[in-house]
């Protein structure tokens, strides 16, 4: 286990380095720079600004300087939020995105697994049909459309939630629901498929033959097998929730990492974009490792190696 984690750590460092390098050069190849603005400043003034951030240095030198700082976990100053360093921006944005993501994920898993289970157990019933229609709807409707409709209904028609903003629990619910909805849909479908497959297996028959109740068979014997595809989906789902939050954070005016990323990317705030990318990479890696460990936990046949 510890060997596994060590190896993973090694891979993570390598991955982060590759991502770092690719993003570093990719960002600078893309046209436009951080100090372009609609009102063009004189060339000499722009030079002054670029000199302040050492952007006038040769690219390779910039790369190594920045890499050295990054290794020390110092992402440098943000080019577009001049009052902050990237570390500060991330420290403020991360908890917000994280809690939004966690809420969305918990919601997606709870709802998805429940709906999937009910659908699978009551196959071809009315519940199955309506749950699957809902799941498909969740997948089919873009989350920003969902969010707009939800705002009109839940904010203005019934006045349950505030329109946007951050600070209280009430303000997290709606964005988390909208963010989690497509993933709940995916998970419901995966659970249903997985459960149907598992329910046809021999050991389920054994469990019934032992005289176990329907409920016990499904929950104790069926669920674990059915959850495997869901668990392996959690890695991509995390990635999806991270990117999904880009749009929703804007709609609900949440000051999370998603909006930082979009802004940073479109305004070429190199350091901030890089910081967010690396945090995302780290998160994804941790999540994937967790998924692998969970795999090992759920399925004893899988050696965590």
């Amino acid at each position: 286990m510890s060997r596994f984690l060590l190896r993973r750590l090694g891979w993570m460092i390598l991955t982060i380095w590759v991502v770092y390098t690719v993003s570093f050069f990719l960002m600078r190849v893309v046209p436009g720079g951080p100090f372009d603005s609609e009102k063009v400043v004189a060339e000499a003034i722009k030079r002054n600004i670029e000199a302040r951030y050492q952007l006038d240095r040769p690219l390779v030198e910039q790369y190594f300087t920045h890499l050295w700082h990054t290794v020390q976990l110092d992402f440098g100053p943000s080019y577009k939020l001049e009052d902050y360093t990237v570390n500060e921006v991330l420290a403020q944005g991360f908890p917000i995105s994280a809690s939004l993501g966690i809420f969305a994920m918990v919601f997606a898993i709870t709802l998805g697994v429940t709906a999937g289970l009910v659908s699978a157990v009551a196959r071809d019933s009315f519940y199955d049909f309506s749950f699957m229609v809902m799941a498909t709807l969740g997948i089919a409707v873009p989350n920003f459309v969902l969010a707009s409709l939800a705002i009109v209904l839940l904010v203005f028609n019934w006045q349950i939630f505030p329109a946007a903003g951050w600070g209280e629990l009430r303000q997290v619910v709606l964005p988390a629901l909208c963010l989690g909805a497509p993933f709940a849909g995916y998970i419901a479908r995966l659970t249903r498929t997985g459960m149907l497959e598992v329910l046809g297996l021999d050991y389920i028959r054994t469990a019934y033959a032992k005289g176990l109740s329907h409920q016990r068979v499904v929950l104790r014997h069926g669920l674990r097998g059915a959850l495997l595809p869901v668990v392996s989906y959690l890695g991509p789902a995390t990635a999806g929730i991270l990117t999904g939050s880009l749009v929703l954070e804007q709609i609900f005016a949440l000051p999370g990492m998603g909006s930082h990323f979009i802004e940073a990317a479109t305004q070429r705030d190199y350091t901030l974009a890089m910081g967010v990318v690396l945090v995302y990479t780290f998160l994804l890696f941790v999540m994937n490792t967790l998924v692998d460990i969970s795999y090992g936990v759920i399925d004893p046949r899988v050696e965590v190696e």
Partner: protein
Amino acid sequence: MNATTRRIFPYLMLLLILTALGWAVSFGTLPKADFTFNNGTEIKTVDPAKATGSPEGRIINALFEGLLRNLPEKEATDPHQVIPLEPTTGGVAESYQVSADGTVYTFQLRSSARWSNGDPMTAHDFVWSWQRMLHPETGSEYSYQLHYVVNAKKYNMAEVQVGDRVEIELKDRRDPLQAFPRGTLKRGLLKAIEKPKGSSPDDAEEADSREEWIYRVEVKPTSNGKVSWDAAGTLKTFSQQPTGTTVDHSCHHVLIDFDSNVEIRAINDQTLVIKLNNPTPYFKQLLAFYPLYPVNRECVEKYGAPNWTKPENIVTNGPYRLEFRRIRDRLRLTRNPHYWDVKNVSLETIDALAITSYTTSLNMYINGQLDWSPTMPNTIMDLLRKRDDFVSAPFMAIYFYRINVERPPLDKKLVRRALNLAINKQLICDQITAAGQQPARSFVPPQLQGYTGQQCGAHDVARARQLLAAAGYPNGKGFPKVQILYNTSDSHQEIAEFIQQEWKENLGIDIELRNLEWATFLDTLNQGDYSVSRSGWIGDYPDPNTFLDMFVTDGPNNQTNWSNSTYDELIEAAKSEPDSTRRMETLQQAEGILMSELPILPIYFYVSTNLVSPRVKGFSGNIQDVHPLHILRVE
């Protein structure tokens, strides 16, 4: 993995999730502010020297105060009234005099003006703040606003010539990355500059090799902070990055000596004298514009950038203090008890939110979460316009299309004029933007006092077709493929689609649309890699010059490759023209050239759009779309 871990794992995960959820909901919330508005986006900085853009302006106007302050001429009784803003002595200056030739300004500072830490404000604060702004390492984008002052540009651009009095900063700063506080300063006369061999006169390369230059300076003796310029000095050599030969000192910069060259002088604590190169009628406006607001030297030097801007560190001199800031969420302003006019500041706390989505902003306004929203979706503009809380006024800004005059067939004047005539601008204003914008036939907005815009032709399809045929493209036949470049936001796409359709239907030419995201768009525009491009321009100050000097040959904002020597001469002449009527006439002539050559197609003049809650008093429209927060009240 054994069974025990396996059994515990789900509970561990559950615990983890629960902890995370608990942590997620534990964020404290601030009590509601007296007044909440949407500032449109997260501001770049609260540092006046580095800020650009109107969201920054709103905050800096509340936090800081310049010599003069833009205030409405009279108290607004009805938000729909348009009350012009004037630079008044409602700022740090109590009074001021301008010399007869219009080049020397003398300000008397208010003795009651204080920093938010209680320290008195002095004229030296302005001198230091502006020196900081002009210092090359500050990298201020708006530093050109001070270029009107004698020698300011030279200092800003780090231009030095042999014979200049120079200041040399040695490499002994407390923190090498902070330009302030500065290292040891040596002052003296520049005797010679030795450039490395083989350096070409090419500008860019010269700048690159500049670090290796060796400066020979006769360093003058200093006593008690005073430099005795007439005394004999010692000859020393300096270089930024000496290579090869040894020098006496390596230094950060060699700049012209600020104190003795740049004409910003504190006569005493209360008196500031500024000398300009030319009479600049709009210089008062600049002084009331946020880039020239002062910053607190002690605070900046103690904490350094960017830490001095943190709410816990910052010292300001405006009506408000910065209490709290969460990036891309909100900025909480609290009344500054040390403000000289604090008794007239009504709102105790103000929240400025950074909501980028127009629809979200509208949602929050309708929902009562905002008292003022300057942004709203334009799709329902005609509905919003009918509302009583919709406050709108003409705005000194223009929406126009740039044309790359080097690309055939757009190099032909006839073609450009045909394109202009074929657009029904009225329809764009009525049906697409729909907030009461005025179709534009000139480049300078019509609201500027004492100026009459010169107009290009009005919508006339038949004439347009005639012109196009005369240019060699009857019915648009043979017209090469032309692209309209625009960026993704607002109604740019709809307007581009509309114009595409207009040109297709009226002139028979096929246009492609090229939609780019912002940074790519700017870069493409800068590179001149376009044929026709959507553009906009907001005047910095209410004077035609801010619009017209864009299009001088090789002006950084020209970007059309258009060049006209008469035009250049007229703009230059206007700069040094002391008589205001004659100056305006000169500028009108220039605009006349612009409107007949048409390197740009004016589309419409903006209006400001604001949704202001009826409980807010003291809000009024003006052409700058600037709304000082400290004069607002709520009921």
